């Protein structure tokens, strides 16, 4: 029973959890959400740009998108965050006078998620049947308008589940920005748990952090499943029987 008690002590020290909760709500949660949402939005914009470059008829644009994606997808997130944060941080400090690593954290997360989101969008756009572009162009739309009005919207719709999955990954990866040494008011859920764990010598604050992450990610996961199912079955609508569908116009009687 000693072992069980010891485990309960390490993970479920209610006092330690209770002490860290206010700070997690007031500081950690908002920061995690800001990091994830802002870099999610910027990453989506970067991703759209990369996807359009990736399917462009211009070979130069395709190559740039390819190289960017290969590098950013191929590196461990920790490494990217460190290199961008510490590498470009001093330059930004020089230019803006700001010492906060927060913008660098957002930049690193955005650049990384942009590479993944770009691939998601590209695969979605390319999965749209070629007949869609052909039919749009046959109506007299230019290539650009056809893509913008018909092909890209369909491509995005198709990859919405994958996109939400990427946002879930982003929420989790935002925990890595603690490497950059954020100011006390900038700390997100993970670092607040980590600090408290270090102070108390107990793992329970991590458990509190885990609960916060799950409260964010599990609803999103189910949201993904919901859109996925919705897109597969669509809104139900009754089809007419084929006999009723066959009759038409004056010619049908002829």
């Amino acid at each position, binding site marked *: 029973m000693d072992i069980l008690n010891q485990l309960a002590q390490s993970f479920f020290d209610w006092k330690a959890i209770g002490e860290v909760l206010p700070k997690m709500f007031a500081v950690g949660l908002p920061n995690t959400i800001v990091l994830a949402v802002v870099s999610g939005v910027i990453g989506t914009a970067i991703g759209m740009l990369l996807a359009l470059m990736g399917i462009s008829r211009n070979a130069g644009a395709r190559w740039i998108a390819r190289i960017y994606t290969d590098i950013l997808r191929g590196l461990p997130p920790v490494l990217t965050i460190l290199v961008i944060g510490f590498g470009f941080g001093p330059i930004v400090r020089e230019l803006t006078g700001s010492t906060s690593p927060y913008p660098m954290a957002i930049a690193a997360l955005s650049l990384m998620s942009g590479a993944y989101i770009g691939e998601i969008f590209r695969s979605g756009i390319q999965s749209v049947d070629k007949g*869609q572009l052909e039919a749009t162009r046959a109506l007299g739309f230019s290539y650009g308008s056809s893509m913008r009005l018909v092909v890209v919207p369909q491509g995005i719709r198709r990859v919405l589940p994958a996109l939400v999955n990427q946002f879930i990954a982003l929420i989790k990866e935002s925990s890595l920005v603690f490497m950059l040494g954020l100011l006390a008011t900038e700390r997100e859920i993970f670092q607040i748990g980590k600090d408290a764990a270090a102070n108390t010598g107990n793992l329970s604050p991590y458990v509190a952090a885990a609960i916060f992450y799950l409260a964010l990610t599990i609803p999103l996961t189910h949201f993904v499943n919901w859109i996925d199912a919705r897109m597969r079955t669509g809104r139900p609508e009754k089809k007419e029987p084929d006999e009723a569908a066959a009759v038409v116009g004056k010619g049908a009687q002829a």
Partner: protein
Amino acid sequence: MSEFVSGTLTAKNIHLSFGSNHVLRGIDLHVEKGTTASVIGPSGSGKSTLLRVMNRLIEPDQGDILLDGRSVLKDNPDELRRRIGMVFQQFNLFPHKTVAENISLALRKLRGMSKEQARDEALNQLDLVGLKHKADSRPANLSGGQQQRVAIARALAMKPEVMFFDEATSALDPELVKGVLALMTDLAKGGMTMVVVTHEMGFSRNVSDVVTFMDAGVVVESGPPEQLFTDPRTERLQGFLSDVL
């Protein structure tokens, strides 16, 4: 008397290659205003490709395309395509838009109509193909025949001078073919200039004014349907007709 402002379409000595594959080898086709030309021939003979070259979805390597006697190769291809309607084997309706929006999109963006005007015009066109009651459905909830009729309405809404049909009934269940062919017959009788690539020999024989038989990228035989179907001159057409009839 024609219900349509239709034009005369001429293709002259059209050549097209994809790499070493010489798909079209000097095609001539003349479709007089208000008439229907059907193009028949085995799969891979270049019929569908010819349609795409004539509305410049694919640019020819050589040759000329004339609409009402004037070459259109120097025009903006997007503007040319607004004058030529096209209907596809796979319908190619926009699945993320309603039936009415499928039709109104080009009216709004290319013809500059307001949202209300475009919707009214879309409903008019849908009425003509007997599908006004489906205006707010999604294409996926329509039968193949209904989808193809919407596709025809979408093309007609642009008031084209010529209509292309690329095997418009090949993807339909047999019982739905009749409705689409009936609609195409109405258009032909209404004076639309039409080029119809088809495997429906009955339609080709009964409705078209000129039948063109293509094989391996060349026009093998061309003439009035009666002559081609009852008295084929070439061995290739004889062989083709004995295979399909």
